[in-house]
């Protein structure tokens, strides 16, 4: 199974995302922002970073990139797409997910191991989790405050589109503690925290068992590989 990882100018975490794909057992394929060809990948990851220097609005210019036009089209046809951090911002700017992300309420860049509650497992990227499961993966952002109008929030809650909520602390002022969303079909998921940084013992968050042994992020990638095999 081939999973594409997009690189925009200013992307940072494409290598980590590709590594996560490989550790999960998939084949990682590099996709380039200027190329409209997705090279027959079965799923796409939009990794974190600061595409186009966060100019205009985070993710706004990346949403206009040639590769995104193909991704938007294919995502609407069911291609699994995961947007992490800046990738989540690209997804909202592409209107594949609703709402927006603004500067953290307390105005600080935040970098911490973050507890999340898995609120939905009916997606291509979360099927290996159990509903209500608490996971810990790194969070690192300056503009991660999720906002939407009341009508949209009501729809997100009513249609069960909230996929991850922050647990214990709301690190950035996100409305309804929203850390991640899915689309109605469940093929598109976006979240601010970074699953690709928690896939390998020795490099993940601390756990009660051992330092840096947390690999909760791996299930995002094994979930999508499983959903592709079953599809």
């Amino acid at each position: 199974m081939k999973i594409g990882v997009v690189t925009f100018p200013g992307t940072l975490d494409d290598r980590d995302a590709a590594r996560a794909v490989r550790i999960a057992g998939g084949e990682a394929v590099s996709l380039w922002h200027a190329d409209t060809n997705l090279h027959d990948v079965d799923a796409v990851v939009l990794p974190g970073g600061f595409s186009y220097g966060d100019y205009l609005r985070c993710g706004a210019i990346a949403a206009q990139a040639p590769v995104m036009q193909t991704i938007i089209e294919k995502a609407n046809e069911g291609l699994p797409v995961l947007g992490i951090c800046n990738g989540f911002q690209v997804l909202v700017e592409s209107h594949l997910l609703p709402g927006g992300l603004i500067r953290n309420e307390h105005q600080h860049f935040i970098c911490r191991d973050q507890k999340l509650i898995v609120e939905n497992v009916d997606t291509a990227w979360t099927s290996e989790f159990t509903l209500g499961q608490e996971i810990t993966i790194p969070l690192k952002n300056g503009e991660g405050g999720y906002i939407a109008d009341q009508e949209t929030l009501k729809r997100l809650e009513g249609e069960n589109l909230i996929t991850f909520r922050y647990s214990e602390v709301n690190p950035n002022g996100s409305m309804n503690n929203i850390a991640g969303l899915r689309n109605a079909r469940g093929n598109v998921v976006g979240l601010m925290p970074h699953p690709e940084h928690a896939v390998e013992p020795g490099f993940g968050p601390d756990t009660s068992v051992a330092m840096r042994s947390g690999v909760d992020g791996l299930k995002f990638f094994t979930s999508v590989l499983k959903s592709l095999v079953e599809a």
Partner: protein
Amino acid sequence: MPKIIVEVMPKADLLDPQGKAVGNSLKRAGHSVATVRIGKRIELHYDHTPTEADLEAAKQAAADFLSNGVIEDVVNVTVEA
């Protein structure tokens, strides 16, 4: 150079952390300001006098790309000769 000016502001009912930080700083410096909100002024430059069509195109770009309707309002799109 003839230009079209696009002005974008964060929505009135949403938090503007940048404006809040600047407001706090102004207050610390003794200003009697109550709140501050920070928006954007975007200048589109033309090598000709902008036509009605240019203005319409600018308004479209302002709504679709230069602003995000979820978090911002376009408050002004005007030709400045």
